[in-house]
């Protein structure tokens, strides 16, 4: 029971710290990431229920969500001031790279969706 209490306490602390310390820009990106995650889960559940018939379409859509999630997470990491020492990219450069990768991703997704 104390374990559960401990875990609950940790989660509460996490939540508190998250709400207070993260800047608004990063929270926006986090909301976007949650949305993309939900889309991915919905697609996967649909595939499990209905079957994989146009497998390339399913793969294309699912990988699109995973790709958007990864790219959003990378953007968040690069914009985070705390990580300034590991990456030395300006926010504009980070966003430009984000757009570049997205262009490639969506071109391939549209080609693969069939």
């Amino acid at each position: 029971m104390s374990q559960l209490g401990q875990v609950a306490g940790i989660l509460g602390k996490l939540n508190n710290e998250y709400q207070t310390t993260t800047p608004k820009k990063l929270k926006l990106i986090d909301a976007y990431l949650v949305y993309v995650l939900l889309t991915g889960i919905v697609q996967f559940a649909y595939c499990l229920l209905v079957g994989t018939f146009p497998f390339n379409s399913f793969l294309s859509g699912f990988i699109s969500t995973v790709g958007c999630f990864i790219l959003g997470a990378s953007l968040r990491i690069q914009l985070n001031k705390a990580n300034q020492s590991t990456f030395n990219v300006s926010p504009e450069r980070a966003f430009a790279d984000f757009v570049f990768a997205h262009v490639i991703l969506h071109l391939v997704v549209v080609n693969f969706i069939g």
Partner: protein
Amino acid sequence: MAAKVTTNQSSIKDDSELTANDPELQTNVSSKKRLSSSSNMLATSSLISPTGLTSLISFIVLTCAYISGFMSRLFSVIRFESIIHEFDPWFNYRSTAYMTENGFYNFLNWFDELAWYPLGRIVGGTIYPGLMVTSGVIHWFLHMINIPIHIREICVFLAPFFSGLTALATYLFTKELWSRRAGLFAAAFIAIAPGYSSRSVAGSYDNEGIAIFALMFTYFLWIRSVKTGSVFWSSCTALSYFYMVSAWGGYVFIINLIPVHVFVLIVLRRYSLRLYVSYSIFYILGLILSMQIPFVGFQPVRTSEHMLAAGVFALLQAYAFIDYLYTKIPRAADIKQLFFGLIMIVGLIVFAAVVVLTYAGYIAPWSGRFYSLWDTNYAKIHIPIIASVSEHQPTTWTSFFFDLHLLICLFPVGAWFCIKELTDERVFIVLYAVFASYFAGVMIRLMLTLTPCVCVLAAIALSKTLDYYADTETSDMSTSPVVPTNDGDGDDTESDKNNRNLYDKAGKPKPIPGRRGTPGTNPEAEEDTSIVSSNIKTVVVICIAMMLMLFAVHCTWVTSNAYSSPSIVLASYNNDGSRYIIDDFREAYYWLRKNTPERARVMSWWDYGYQIAGMGNRTVLVDNNTWNNSHIALVGKAMSSNETEAYKIMTMLDVDYVLVIFGGMIGYSGDDINKFLWMVRIAEGEHPKDIREQDYFTENGEFRVDRTGSPVLLNCLMYKLCYYRFGELQTDFRSPPGFDRTRHVEIGNKNFDLQHVEEAYTTEHWIVRIYKVKKLANRLQAKNALRQVQRRKSIYSTTKKVAGQARKQGVILNKPQIKKGTKISKRKT
């Protein structure tokens, strides 16, 4: 001094390029001052700035590497002509020609009726199109700017062209790993190393020619993205990986080595956010890009070979998430335990999931080609076709030295240096070395993947050695206190530079600032290094230079003698040294092209399928693609059975012509009789009741074609087709007629006749023999050879002999009695 420093701020920024982008070095301002001070002296003494000189030398060395790599691959073009070599390149050439004539979409959807006679081949879905597309693009571009080069020339010279680009990619890769100087060495090594040039001579138009370039370029981009953590470089890595997937089936090596690198970095506690960003983006973009190639299809999510990448991806996501949470929580010791426990659990879950899915059938197990790398006996028992290819045999010790000469000796030294001064990217090269060494030991063909790694590590070893020994100026400094430098590679600068400025001799050429370096990691050694005087250092440098010259000579010799044969044109040398060309293959294929009906089907062993289809333009039954083992086994059975049985198979397969290669007249050892046992084994695999390998050996277990050979062998179709009329031929007055020069025996079954085939064409040196399959005879041969005529009994002779009645001469027997006045009675007979 200070004034000079401030005026040289720009050169400081340029000089940072020289020290391999190492961020820690930029904080070492004091060393920069010394760098700039001496470089300033150079700047004022000559017109060329040190960075300019460095760039110029790099450019010149790389250009020389490109040119020498290109030139050393041109031996066969100079000696013979610009022709496509061997077997596989003929198919690639035919596909490329098809693409340039019919356009890209028709090429992707091409169904080839000329191959695998009754079945055909879906070319678009069973090849890696990168090679053809590359040649096609170059062809289109050149024609667009009105340089009309024929597609054959582009195909022949594509591999040497790309070998120069491989040298560039290796330079960039090594520059990321170590330093620019090591990069130049690596570029020079890979340009001429026989291990690589063996598969990329002019005329060898095969996937490996461009695949090694794509491999090194992908690895360079991967290392770049791990070092910077940039999304841009990761996306470029994914695009280069896409090019590699389109080029060669060996892309599996990349998609397994990079996850192993990530996993080992995690295990070594070197996880960083840069790693997360670079691997995640590379994996996702690379995954969906690789599935665009029709031949690869859905394999990246369905086969075991790709599961390691997916597993590491999942593990990395979990690790990053837990690491993020960990940063949010104030530090606590037990949380750390929880953290690692969680990671282990996630890893185990991922692994278990992959195993369960494999057993459930959702994920295909390792395919035969890759499983045989792990279990080397597997192919010999289960897939004899894979085992029969000569390139798939295990590597001998001598071939390591033959293909790599000096580099294989320097290779462990370089690996040791990388381990000693370990960074994230050097973990990669060490892993590459370990795995490539294993694979090169398993199969000769995979020496090719070992060669770039060996070149890089040997270059590192040599560069580090020469950093010390080629620097003959700091040798007489002894007492200056050592400033321990904090960078790992040989690019350090020393407090000795201070003394150097005082001791400079007038007129002595300054070394390039980048090349200055002494091993700064070991303070005790500093005092010892003063013992080695500049004379000894010069001697060592001269010895190393001589070894490198020997290396260059060896590489050129090996490329010229061993790897430049076009195999479609043979050359032998007469007693006076003049060259004698044996062009039988092309003679035979051209005869086929001109003298047979257009839809004729040719049966031969699968080695020659691509050449017959490419040069003869006729339909073949089996070719080098070897995708249908049963079909090949049928052909093998036809070749191994006696003529009547073989005729049944040939009529079933609807064959018009049979082609065999026979080397007995001139001593050519690559002929079908030498390959015959593989035909038997492959046929036995599918038809074990009809064909038994033991039948073809003598009682002692030898394979002989002379009188002591087994009768099954002496009567099989292959034997008869090869040795038809050979018994009449006496090649040399010292040997009996029918003496096989390849097997060095007199053949056992001579002067036989062929029943169901007839000889159509035999080339000048009897190397290629073509037979036409006769249709069924109209009339079956009667049982009795002579006609028996049924005669009626003659009235003048009786079969009965009247007892006792003597046959007197002149007596007429049974003379009719004539009674005057009565009618003659009717004859009773």
